[in-house]
């Protein structure tokens, strides 16, 4: 009895954690920005600062830009997602992170991870945002709004809209 009482909260936590299906999908977007990588990183390198430049984000809060750091992103559509950093590499202007629990209202996917990298490109910078996700319904007959295609559209849209917002924020000299 004592054992089962100890185990129960763990079991509940486990079912709330992400469960994803067997077939991943790619997402990849990039943009060039007329500013040095350092200048871009100053804005984009703050993991929890995404609310300052992403047009679809209402607000973001976080525990710091470091390995294991996390951010909770509230979308303008009302959904919210918590993401945690796997690797934060400021010297390489790059970080990798993954989603915690899914919120299909925010993005119609059951799981994702992504890498954000700023690199030199001529006099300016290139920003790459790429990742891997699983559709919202991982069963074999997903509804249209939770299919691979719906996930691709939403993820590519979120990344590309974000990069345009970042470009505007950096080149315009001010965050949104």
């Amino acid at each position: 009895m004592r054992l089962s009482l100890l185990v129960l909260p763990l079991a509940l936590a486990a079912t709330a954690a992400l469960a994803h299906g067997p077939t991943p999908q790619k997402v990849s977007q990039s943009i060039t920005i007329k500013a040095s990588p350092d200048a871009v990183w100053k804005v984009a390198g703050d993991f929890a600062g995404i609310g300052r430049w992403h047009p679809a984000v209402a607000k973001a809060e976080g525990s710091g830009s470091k390995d294991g750091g996390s951010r909770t992103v509230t979308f303008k559509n009302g959904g919210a997602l918590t993401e945690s950093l796997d690797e934060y590499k400021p010297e390489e202007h790059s970080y990798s992170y993954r989603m915690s629990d899914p919120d299909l209202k925010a993005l119609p996917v059951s799981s994702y991870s992504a890498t954000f990298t700023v690199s030199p490109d001529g006099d300016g910078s290139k920003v790459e945002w790429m990742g891997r996700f699983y559709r919202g319904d991982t069963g074999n007959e997903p509804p249209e709004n939770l299919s691979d295609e719906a996930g691709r559209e939403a993820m590519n849209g979120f990344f590309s809209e974000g990069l345009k917002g970042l470009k505007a924020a950096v080149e315009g000299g001010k965050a949104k």
Partner: protein
Amino acid sequence: MSSTLVARVLVPALVLSSLPAWAGTVFVTSQQGAQLARVEEGRVTGGTAVASAPATVAAGGGLVFLSHPDGHAITVADAATGAVLRRLPYGGQAFGLAVPADGRSLFVADWSGNRVDRLSVEDGTVEASAETGRDPAHLVLDRAGRLFVADRESHRVSVFDGARMTRLATIPVGTAPFALALSPDERRLYVGNVRSNDVTVIDTGSLTALATVPAGAMPYGLAVSPDGARIFVTNQHAGTVTVLDAASLTIQARIGVGRYPEGIALLDGKAYVANWFSDTVSVIDLATLKEVARLPVAEGPRSVAVGSTQGGAP
């Protein structure tokens, strides 16, 4: 997983006699590219078009098997030529595969069905089944016929008698176990835990966990060196392979590979790593622990398995 599969590959002598004398073949499945590629002596020597979105590849008994989670099917191909022989219908979401030494049956993990089935390799008839934990991922079979299952969302490994499909043990491991690999002497089972970023070491005698040690960001594939001294772990989120010393269970080296590495297999002093996002296979020299080549393959390589025409470990 690969090291155990290697030990079970016995290509019939008839086939052997008509083939050039290479040491073995690494089979690579590409998900989006829907291809089964063959890598021999460090280069891509062939590719076969297969049904869409293959996930896992396993080899045994002169055959190669590919699971299609979204396609209700398993592809059976000829290990000597790579040619597709037939399609086995499968009711569930086939993911992990394991092939017994006799090559007559095939174990399949049904990801969303929370079960493992043993199928006839002739026509896919389900011979026996057992209930697993939630989201069973990869499978491995030892020489005694015990089947180990990574129950990903139950955070444990289930152990079955593969002949009777009765449960022998349930072993708690790290968070979200996914990949499995036996040591060559089969005294240890290594388990990669994708969310706790570590590897659990299981004693296969007592069927208990000995230790859980850090590996890297999202361990997704495992292989053990032929002498059992080193464990190779692909880290999907870091784009690296970490090398663990089997005695101290500490990280000896980190080797950069492509993006989103998944499956890994060892053959003839090299490791082959499927880089899912980069559409390449990294070749790592096991003596220098350096990446020596990146072989382009069809889009989305996920899984690798070794088929040996010599019928022995590499």
